[in-house]
């Protein structure tokens, strides 16, 4: 406050000062005018010329000064009473995120920000709650057959799409058929290609049958948002630009790169008091996003840069939210390359790294140690005994493996500054046990080419890769199978550790065949134990997600995957 008044005072002070200056100039101008007039006609002396030159430039200066004054005064007037903080009326919620939205086609979305925006307008048969647990949404209840092949849904009645169409089993079928019939859509290969039959039992009951059991399917029913059948007829171009669903807000406009806005849908099935309008803005620069939160131009910012936390914690108008995420950070170790094919070496690398230091150095203190192969928010997570930093033990393991002297290795990562920091941290930690790490950072596209360009494990040049993985909390399959399954080697998956354990492969097959949650939990417990012990990664940390909100915001939360839920958004 103190600071503010000080700066507010400044323009006035300068204005007054320059005001005086103008008078002073005018005065001198007029006196000199007279002298000039008197002198010049007499002769064209050098002095006269000089005088004229001075006169000309003085007038010019006068013009400039008054122009500056004018601008200063006018902007002063316009600013009075129009402070950024009070500008927004209470009916609009502005959410600033860090990246552009890519598409509004929910069946073909791969990025979190697009998902966030879509979730305001569109709903699936199932949804997820604040913790990431699956809950009924457009379906009132659901059941899975014992062979894990048939999913039955009882649909909510009396639901309308934003364009006035009715929501019913026909609409669901049309949506699922769109995904099944278009292999270029993301959701096709993620579950929907397994569907063999969709049966409409009645107007509000539908059964979906799969070719083979797939335990990630429930999560796919969350992702597969139901669009208006009318929109589906209009085709993919229209869907990507102008989504129509059943959600609490309906689409208004999307100005590429600037904003996307939605407004309250008054016929929404779950009646509650909600804010009238929500505008989403991509604001890539951290400092600008924080500035928007401070001025009240935005009520919610995500992500919140960690370096600004301290400064904002003392601000009464702003709340900082910390949410444990499903983003696991790790270094994958190519288990097929020497010397990493020896489990003792991989364990030694794990023992060499101080996880708490990693979180405080690389993640600015916001995070938790990765104490299993999946983050704690993921379904069926079970805490393992952490490889606590123990340099002696690490050296002993190296000695047992015959590499007492240490060895040279390479770590890859993208050019992101946080990744660089992380790789340097690993380099410094591994130096302690004599492992000399060379950092190779590559621009994302090139890196992806280097990793997924390898057609066979023998082709793979990667030794260690500093990377992260994130899956929906309810989707343990996606948090394990692409990473630890013997059939998921690049280019067919993300098992960049080239980790293959026949027992684990068998468990993964088994767990994906059963709909029984208890049995799943049991098998996942075994998988976690085994893989953690085999150490195909250096297990580092799980990010904590940070978001900033003005204190008058209600009903907005950030999910563990970084999605922004505004279903019940309101402003006090």
């Amino acid at each position, binding site marked *: 406050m103190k600071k503010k008044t000080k700066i*507010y005072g400044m323009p006035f002070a300068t204005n007054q000062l320059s005001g005086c200056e103008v008078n002073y100039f005018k005065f001198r101008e007029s006196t000199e005018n007279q002298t000039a007039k008197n002198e010049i006609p007499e002769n064209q002396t050098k002095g006269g010329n000089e005088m004229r030159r001075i*006169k000309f430039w003085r007038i010019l200066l006068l013009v400039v000064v008054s122009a500056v004054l004018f601008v200063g005064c006018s902007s002063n007037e316009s600013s009075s009473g129009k402070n950024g903080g009070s500008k927004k009326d209470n009916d609009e919620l502005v959410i600033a995120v860090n990246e552009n939205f890519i598409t509004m086609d929910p069946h073909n979305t791969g990025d979190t920000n697009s998902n966030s925006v879509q979730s305001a307008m569109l709903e699936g048969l199932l949804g997820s709650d604040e913790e990431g647990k699956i809950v009924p949404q457009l379906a009132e209840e659901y059941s899975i057959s014992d062979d894990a092949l048939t999913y039955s849904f009882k649909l909510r009645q009396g639901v309308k799409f934003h364009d006035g169409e009715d929501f019913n089993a026909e609409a669901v079928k049309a949506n699922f058929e769109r995904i099944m019939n278009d292999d270029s859509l993301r959701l096709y*290969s993620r579950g929907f290609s397994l569907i063999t039959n969709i049966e409409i039992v009645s107007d509000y009951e539908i059964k979906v049958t799969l070719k083979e059991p797939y335990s990630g399917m429930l999560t796919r029913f969350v992702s597969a948002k139901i669009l208006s059948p009318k929109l589906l007829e209009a085709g993919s171009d229209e869907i990507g630009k102008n989504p129509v669903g059943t959600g609490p807000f309906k689409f208004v406009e999307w100005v590429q790169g*600037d904003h996307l806005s939605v407004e309250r849908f008054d016929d929404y099935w779950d009646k509650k008091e909600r804010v009238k309008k929500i505008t989403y803005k991509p604001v890539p620069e951290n400092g600008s996003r924080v500035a928007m939160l*401070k001025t009240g131009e935005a009520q919610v910012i995500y992500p919140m840069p960690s370096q600004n936390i301290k400064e904002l914690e003392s601000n009464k108008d702003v709340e900082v939210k910390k949410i444990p995420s499903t983003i696991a950070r790790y270094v994958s170790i190519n288990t097929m390359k020497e010397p990493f094919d020896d489990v003792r070496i991989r364990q030694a690398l794990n023992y060499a790294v101080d996880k708490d230091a990693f979180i405080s150095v690389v993640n600015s203190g916001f995070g938790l140690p990765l104490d299993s192969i999946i983050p704690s928010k993921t379904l069926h997570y079970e805490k393992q005994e952490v490889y606590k930093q123990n340099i002696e033990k690490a050296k002993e393991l190296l000695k047992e493996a015959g590499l007492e002297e240490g060895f040279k290795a390479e770590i890859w990562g993208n050019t992101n500054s946080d990744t660089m920091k992380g790789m340097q941290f690993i380099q410094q930690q591994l130096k302690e046990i004599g492992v000399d790490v060379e950092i190779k950072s590559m621009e994302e*596209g090139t890196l992806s080419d280097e990793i997924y360009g390898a057609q066979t494990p023998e082709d793979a040049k990667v030794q260690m890769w500093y990377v992260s*993985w994130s899956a929906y909390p309810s989707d343990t399959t996606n948090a394990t199978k692409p990473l630890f399954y013997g059939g998921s080697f690049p280019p067919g*998956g*993300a098992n960049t550790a080239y980790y293959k354990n026949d027992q684990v492969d068998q468990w993964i097959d088994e767990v994906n065949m059963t709909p029984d949650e208890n049995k799943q939990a049991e098998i996942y417990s075994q998988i976690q134990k085994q893989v953690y012990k085999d150490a195909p990664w250096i297990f580092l940390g799980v990010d904590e997600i940070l978001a900033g909100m003005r204190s008058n915001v209600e009903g907005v939360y950030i999910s563990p995957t970084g999605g922004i839920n505004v279903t019940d958004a309101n402003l006090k």
Partner: protein
Amino acid sequence: MPQYVLKRIFEMIPILFIVSVLIFFFTHLIPGDPARLVAGKDATAEEVTIIRSELGLDKPIWDQYITYMGNLFQGDLGTSLKTRLPVMDMFADRFMPSIYLTLSSMVWALILGLLIGTLSAVFKNKWPDYLGMVTAVSGISLPGFWLGLLLIQVFSVQLGWFPTGGIDSWKSYVLPSLTLGAGIMSMLARFTRSSLLETLKADFIRTGRAKGLKESIVIPKHALRNSLIPVVTIAGLQFGFLLGGSVVVETVFSFPGMGRLLIDSISFRDYPVIQAELLLFSLEFILVNLLVDILYSFLNPKIRQVS
């Protein structure tokens, strides 16, 4: 003169053709597979193959080039691999804001740059010169990133005069154009000063003053006009660069411009967007160059005669 302009416009066609070839092949030479990036990290090999053929990336590169040129002649810039939206649609919302921002930055930078440069030259080694050159040196040395954030802190957060970003009204353009123009203004001021100092030493200036011409005629009409050639060259170049968008300013002010779109497209290997944008920039650059050449001939009758 019209003949000359027409000739120059015709000359643009082969240049643009060569540029299009270069852009196309260099874009495809960057390592990185768009199909993989489109498919996502958790995609299987089959999916990547499906997407590759969907995007037409499995065809021989010559084939792809012919398709691309064919579409281009029909005015079709293609469809973005990343968003699946027509490239035209993606440009639509960004092109005009970029132009406005460029123009507003150039206008104030030119006016103030010329003014400061002239004042500095006329009052060489006096306080207006020192003040002007301190301003100019600061303008050049302040990184745009820092200046932008500073302006936001003062004018948006503390004073609340202007928004922190976006393109809601004319106010949104003030801070970005100040940030963008600062460096250019300073550069123009320095060029104007040195060029004008050179000219002021010339005989015709002495003659003008000797025959009793007022300073208000000597400086703007005789001296400044003859000093403008290098200034116009620099201004033209800067103008061309600005039209290509400024990643820094667009990022700091979350401004929906062409620069950030290009960077995003490059990291995603979004070939159609990269190609269309580079082609557009080349076209803009060539046009600005033409404009500069025409301006030359107005400034210097000698050039007029030659052309």
